[in-house]
C-alpha cells in the first residue's frame, strides 16, 4: 500500500513536471573555446530543448571551414525530472588568424523565432592560451564551487552548487529569497541529502524544484533550483550557513544488462553574510505590534442586531504579502460594554511571483452586556512595509449595531418537551472554561513500568515459539512412524529387543536354558531384521554381515555378530544344558552388542 502510494505520487509528480516545463523552450549556442590556434578545431554547438522536431538554421560562418556535423541527444534524470536536450555540434576549422564573430543562429518553432547570441572567437597563430570557453549567455556564479571526494574522471566543473540571495540588506521579518542551485553535467544523479540551514530565520518553501539549463563560462549545465523564503528574526550581522549537498553520480556499467555504479560526492557552497536592520523607531504607530509586509485589512461583524447576551462574531481579515507569522490580531477596544472571548485564527498561505503571501482571519466573539453598546469600536491595523521603509496604519470605522434588552427568561430549562414551540432558543455558550476533574483515577499502572519492558513479556513468546517447534517435531516424527514402515521398525527395534531380553531373563532365573536361548535368539534376529530392514524370515549371518558392512560397521562388530549367530546355533542344537552364569554372560554380551549396533546409522 505504502509503495503503491509512493509510486502513484511519483507518477503524478513526473507528470506534473512534464506539464510545467512543456512550454519551456531553450535555444543556445556555445563553443568549446573562444581562443584557438589556427591548427585547432572549433566545436560550435547549438542546443535545443523543448522544441521537438525543430531544426535550426545555421548562420553563414565566414573564415571557417565546416568539417562535419554530429547530432546527439542528452537525457538527464535528476530526482525524477527528465530533460531531453538535442545538441547539434558543428566542427569548424579556421582558415586564417584573427578575431571573428559567429552570427546568430535561428530556430523556428510554432510560429516563433528563437535566436542565439553571436559569439566572438579569436584565432591565433601558434599555440592558443588556455582560456575558458564562451557562450551566448552571461555566466551566473555566486559562490565558488568546492568539491570533495568527487571520483575521477569527474572534473570539478562537472558538478557544483551555489547559494544566492535576492538581497543582502534587509529589515527584521522581511522576506529574503534564498536560492539553492545545483549545476551538473552528468546524466544521472541520486541526491541523498540537501542541507541548507538558516538559523536565526524562520523559513518557508517557495514551491517545487525548478530545472533548466544554463551556460556558465561556456559550459552548458543542467540546473536544479530550489528556493525558500527566509525571514530574519533579529537584527545584526547574520550568516546563512554553507549549503551542503550529498549524493551519488550513477554511472552505467556493462551496457543494457549492466548495473549502475554509484560514485558518491559531497558539495558545499560558501556562507552568505547578511545585514539585518531593526525596524525604525521613527514613525512607529502605537498600534504596531510586529507585522512586516504589505497588507490589506478588512473588518466585518455579524449579526448586527442582537439582544443583550447574544454573541456577535467580528471577523478581521488581513491579507497580502509578507510573513503572516508576524501578524497579530488588531485590538478591539470594547471597554466594559462587551465581553470578549479568545479569537479563532485561520491562516491560508501561498506563494505569488516568488513572494510569500496569504490571508490571516481572526474571528472574535463579543457579547454586548447592555443596550448601551451602540457600535463595535473602530479598529486599526499597523504594519511596516519594507519596500517603502515606512509604517502604515489601516483604520476601519466603527460598525453600528442594534442591541435590545434580553427578556427575563428565568433559569434555562435544559430538558423540555418535544417539538420546537415558541419561546425556545438555542443553548448559548456564555463562557469557556476547562471541563471538570474526573471522579475515578481510572486504570492505575506503575509509572514507567510498561509490561512490554519486562523480560517475561519477551520470554513467554519465545517459549511459545519453542513449544510450537517441539509440537511440530513430535508430530512430524509420529507422521513418519505412521507412513514409513522401515523407519518405524528401526525406531522400535531396540525397545522390542529389550522387552524380549527381559523375558529371557525370567527363563534364565528359572534355569530353562532352551527357552532362554530361544528367546534371546528371537530377540536378536528380530532386532537385526528391524534395524537393517531385512524381512524377519531372511535374517542370517551372511546377509546381516553384508548389510552391516555397507552401513560402515567396524569389522570387530561384524565378527562379533557372526560369533553370536554361531553361539546361538551351538546353544540351541548342540548344548543340552548350561549353567546360569554362562547364560547370564551370554545375555550381557548380546545386550552390549545391541548397544554397539544402536550407534550405527542405517540408511
Amino acid at each position, binding site marked *: 500500500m505504502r509503495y503503491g502510494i509512493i509510486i502513484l505520487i511519483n507518477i503524478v509528480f513526473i507528470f506534473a513536471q512534464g506539464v510545467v516545463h512543456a512550454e519551456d523552450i531553450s535555444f543556445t549556442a556555445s563553443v568549446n573555446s573562444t581562443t584557438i590556434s589556427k591548427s585547432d578545431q572549433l566545436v560550435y554547438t547549438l542546443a535545443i530543448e523543448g522544441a521537438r522536431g525543430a531544426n535550426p538554421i545555421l548562420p553563414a560562418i565566414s573564415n571557417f571551414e565546416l568539417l562535419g556535423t554530429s547530432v546527439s541527444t542528452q537525457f538527464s534524470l535528476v530526482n525524477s525530472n527528465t530533460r531531453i536536450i538535442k545538441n547539434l555540434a558543428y566542427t569548424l576549422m579556421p582558415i586564417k588568424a584573427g578575431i571573428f564573430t559567429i552570427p546568430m543562429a535561428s530556430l523556428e518553432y510554432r510560429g516563433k523565432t528563437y535566436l542565439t547570441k553571436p559569439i566572438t572567437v579569436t584565432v591565433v597563430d601558434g599555440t592558443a592560451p588556455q582560456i575558458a570557453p564562451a557562450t551566448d549567455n552571461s555566466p551566473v556564479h555566486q559562490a565558488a564551487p568546492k568539491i570533495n571526494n568527487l571520483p575521477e574522471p569527474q572534473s570539478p566543473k562537472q558538478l557544483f552548487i551555489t547559494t544566492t540571495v535576492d538581497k543582502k540588506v534587509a529589515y527584521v521579518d522581511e522576506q529574503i529569497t534564498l536560492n539553492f542551485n545545483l549545476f551538473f553535467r552528468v546524466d544521472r544523479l541520486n541526491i541523498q541529502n540537501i542541507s541548507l540551514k538558516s538559523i536565526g530565520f524562520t523559513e518557508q518553501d517557495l514551491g517545487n524544484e525548478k530545472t533548466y539549463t544554463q551556460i556558465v563560462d561556456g559550459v552548458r549545465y543542467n540546473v536544479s533550483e530550489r528556493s525558500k523564503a527566509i525571514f530574519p528574526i533579529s537584527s545584526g550581522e547574520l550568516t546563512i550557513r554553507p549549503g551542503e549537498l550529498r549524493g551519488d553520480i550513477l554511472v552505467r556499467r556493462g551496457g543494457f544488462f549492466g548495473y549502475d555504479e554509484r560514485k558518491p560526492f559531497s558539495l558545499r557552497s560558501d556562507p552568505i553574510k547578511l545585514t539585518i536592520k531593526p525596524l525604525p523607531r521613527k514613525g512607529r504607530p502605537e498600534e504596531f505590534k510586529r507585522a512586516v509586509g504589505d497588507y490589506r485589512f478588512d473588518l466585518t461583524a455579524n449579526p448586527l442586531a442582537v439582544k443583550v447576551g447574544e454573541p456577535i462574531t467580528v471577523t478581521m481579515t488581513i491579507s497580502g504579502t509578507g510573513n503572516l*507569522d508576524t501578524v497579530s490580531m488588531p485590538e478591539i477596544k470594547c471597554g466594559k460594554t462587551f465581553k470578549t472571548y479568545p479569537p479563532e485564527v485561520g491562516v491560508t498561505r501561498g506563494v505569488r511571483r516568488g513572494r510569500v503571501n496569504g490571508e490571516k482571519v481572526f474571528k472574535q466573539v463579543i457579547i454586548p452586556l447592555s443596550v448601551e453598546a451602540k457600535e463595535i469600536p473602530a479598529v486599526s491595523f499597523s504594519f511596516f512595509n519594507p519596500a517603502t521603509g515606512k509604517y502604515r496604519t489601516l483604520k476601519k470605522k466603527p460598525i453600528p449595531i442594534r442591541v435590545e434588552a434580553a427578556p427575563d427568561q428565568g433559569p434555562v430549562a435544559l430538558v423540555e418537551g418535544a417539538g420546537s414551540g415558541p419561546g425556545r432558543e438555542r443553548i448559548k455558550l456564555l463562557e469557556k472554561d476547562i471541563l471538570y476533574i474526573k471522579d475515578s483515577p481510572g486504570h492505575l499502572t506503575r509509572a514507567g513500568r510498561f509490561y512490554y519492558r519486562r523480560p517475561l513479556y519477551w520470554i513467554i513468546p519465545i517459549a511459545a515459539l519453542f513449544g510450537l517447534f517441539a509440537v511440530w517435531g513430535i508430530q512430524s516424527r509420529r507422521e513418519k512412524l505412521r507412513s514409513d514402515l522401515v523407519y518405524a521398525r528401526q525406531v522400535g527395534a531396540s525397545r522390542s529387543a529389550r522387552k524380549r531380553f527381559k523375558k529371557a531373563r525370567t527363563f534364565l532365573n528359572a534355569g530353562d536354558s532352551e527357552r532362554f536361548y530361544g528367546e534371546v535368539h528371537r530377540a536378536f534376529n528380530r532386532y537385526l531384521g528391524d534395524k537393517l530392514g531385512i524381512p524377519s524370515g531372511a535374517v542370517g549371518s551372511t546377509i546381516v554381515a553384508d548389510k552391516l558392512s555397507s552401513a560402515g560397521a567396524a569389522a570387530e562388530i561384524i565378527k562379533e555378530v557372526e560369533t553370536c549367530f554361531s553361539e546361538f546355533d551351538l546353544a540351541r542344537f548342540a548344548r543340552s544344558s548350561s549353567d546360569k552364569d554362562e547364560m547370564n554372560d551370554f545375555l550381557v554380551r548380546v545386550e552390549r552388542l545391541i548397544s554397539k549396533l544402536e550407534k550405527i546409522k542405517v540408511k
Partner: protein
Amino acid sequence: MQIRILTLTLLISLSGIFTVHAEIPEAEIPSLFRQTNSLYAQGKYAEAVEGYNAILQAGWESGPLYYNLANTYFKLNNLGRAILNYRKAWNLSPGDPEISKNLEYAREGLRDDIAALPLSVWARARRAVILQFPLGIWIGISAALYFLTIAWLIAALLIRPLRKKSPLILKWLGGCLAISVVISIMAYSFYRTPGAIILQPTVSVRYGPAETDAAAFKLHEGTEVKVVRKKDGWLQIALPDGESGWLTADSLGII
C-alpha cells in the same frame, strides 16, 4: 466545624504521606484520589496539587490522575505544568475527549504561534491510526494475535480436521499479526522521541549548549517541543516548524 476538622485531619494525613513518600497500596489510591478531588472542589488547588503528586510520587499513574492534576495547575494559572500533565494524560488515554478538549483550551493561552510543517497524507493517516490506542494497547494487540497464531498452529498440528481450514485462518491471523506488529513498531517510534513542555514564562533558545552561545529565539511557557539530544544538563530541542536549539534541562518538563 465538622467540615473544618475533617479537612484538617485529611491535610495532616496527606502531609504525612507527602513528606515520607510512603508506598501507597493500590487499594488506597481511589480513596486518596477522591479526597484530593474534594480539595479541588473546595478551591484548595495548592493542596490538591500535593495530593495528586503524592499518588504520582508513590509510583502510580493514570490518564485521569494526570488530567485532574493538569486541571488543578490550570486553576493555579500554571499553564506550562497544566499542558505538560494534559499531554501525559493524553499519552495514557489518547481517545479521551475531555483530555483533548481541555488540552485544546489550555493551548489557546499559548504565546508562541508556531506554524508546523505540513504533514504528508501518509504521515497524517499513520498518525491517525497510531493515536487510536496507547502504545501499550497496540503492543498488547500484537501479543494477543501472536499467541492466537501460535495456538492455532499447535491446534492444527495436533487435530487433523483443523488442518483443512488452517491455510485460510492462518492467512487472516498472519495478516492481522503483521499489520499490528507494523503499527506497534510505528507507535513505538512515534512515542520514542520524547516531547517536552516549556515550564518557564520565557526562555532563550541558544545555538549551543552553553550560556555563552548566542540566543537564536525565545519560547514561552506551555509550548511543546521535541527533545532531540541531551548534553551536560542541556537539551537540544526541535520545533514543529523545523527550528532547533538548546535549552537548560530545568526549563522543560518531559512528557
